[in-house]
């Protein structure tokens, strides 16, 4: 990881190579537990984006002389304070029913690994603009995975996407459950890695051909 700290930041890194859900599984819990349909996944994605970006921005201002244990506590407290306006905004946009149905998973977003671990080990080692760019990659990667899983579970379990009927010859009600979420995320992660590795091999092959 260190090789990248002072160099250029690539959005691709967080979106694909270190995707938090499909590559590392660093924060798959809310996607598995709460993204059972498209609306829920949108609520989670919005809250995750705002809580993570705003909290990291504020935490960056904290003096470095605080001990690590104190900094971690302050990060968690700041995130839980940021949670309050974010939830009110989510209720305005999606309605209180949608927010209440995923309230447990919204609350645990305040201890997400981007805030509790990656800030110290990665983001705060960069300049402020680079920190936000790098973080945006991770957040976009999480949001895309969350929305993809939510949409797929919506289609597979109810044969619907929002209010549009998707005619499939079967319905998999298990997709609404946690075990359905685990299995779907596992399969998607395997396919995602397969496609990524294939693309990487092809790219390396082309580079070596050009050299020859």
């Amino acid at each position: 990881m260190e090789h990248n700290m002072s160099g250029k930041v690539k959005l691709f890194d967080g979106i694909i190579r270190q995707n938090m859900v499909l590559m590392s599984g660093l924060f798959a819990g809310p996607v598995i537990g709460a993204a059972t349909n498209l609306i829920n996944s949108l609520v989670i994605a919005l809250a995750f984006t705002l809580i993570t970006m705003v909290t990291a921005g504020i935490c960056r201002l904290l003096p470095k002389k605080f001990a690590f244990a104190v900094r971690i506590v302050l990060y968690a407290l700041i995130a839980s304070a940021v949670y309050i306006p974010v939830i009110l905004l989510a209720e305005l946009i999606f309605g209180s029913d949608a927010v209440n149905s995923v309230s447990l998973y919204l609350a645990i977003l305040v201890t997400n690994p981007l805030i509790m671990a990656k800030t110290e080990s990665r983001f705060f080692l960069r300049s402020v603009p680079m920190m936000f760019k790098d973080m945006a990659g991770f957040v976009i990667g999480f949001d895309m995975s969350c929305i993809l899983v939510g949409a797929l579970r919506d289609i597979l379990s109810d044969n619907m996407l929002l209010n549009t009927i998707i005619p499939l010859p079967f319905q998999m009600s298990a997709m609404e459950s946690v075990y359905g979420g685990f299995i779907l995320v596992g399969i998607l992660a395997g396919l995602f890695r397969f496609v990524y590795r294939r693309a990487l091999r092809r790219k390396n092959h082309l580079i070596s051909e050009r050299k020859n």
Partner: protein
Amino acid sequence: METIFSRFLAAALLGIFIENAAFERALGVNVLLYAARKRENLIGIFVGVIYVTTISSALTCLTDRYFSAWEYYNILMPFIYIFIVSAVYILTLMAVWRFFPNILKRVKKYVHLSVFNCAVLGALFIQSRIGGTFASYIGYGLGTGLGFLLAGYLLYAAEDRLNSESVPESFRGMPITMIYIGVISLALSAFWGKH
């Protein structure tokens, strides 16, 4: 006395098996994956989770009892719970630093991981929704920690096979682990008759 113990036991069993944080709620999956990968940290992480969930549950029982009628309590719950968990973390860290400095040196690297994670916070929220007596709060906190330990042990026991060459390369590691947890979760749901 018997009633207090039976409530404690019922809540603990609920936390370990029926409402298992990892298998039934997908909470703390990242910590499980980390702990299973770094075997030397396994015991330290789970002792931390069990300790924090149990002590914090006892304290959240008090805040739930005295402040739950307050209009803004629900939206302030994450802040209040994080405050409680933080207080437990800091006071424990200070006590360990004072009396067992060698232990602190060993666990320093990952101690925050076992305190500030989704399983701990999620357990406090679930218990708050279930409600109950002081004994059931402590029982559920302890049960959640033990249930998390059970999930960690099941992952640890299968780690070598899940990373072996008999698994297709793209599915090796995290993807097959997710499917493995899904299958255990499915089995537990069927066993307890959940839909």
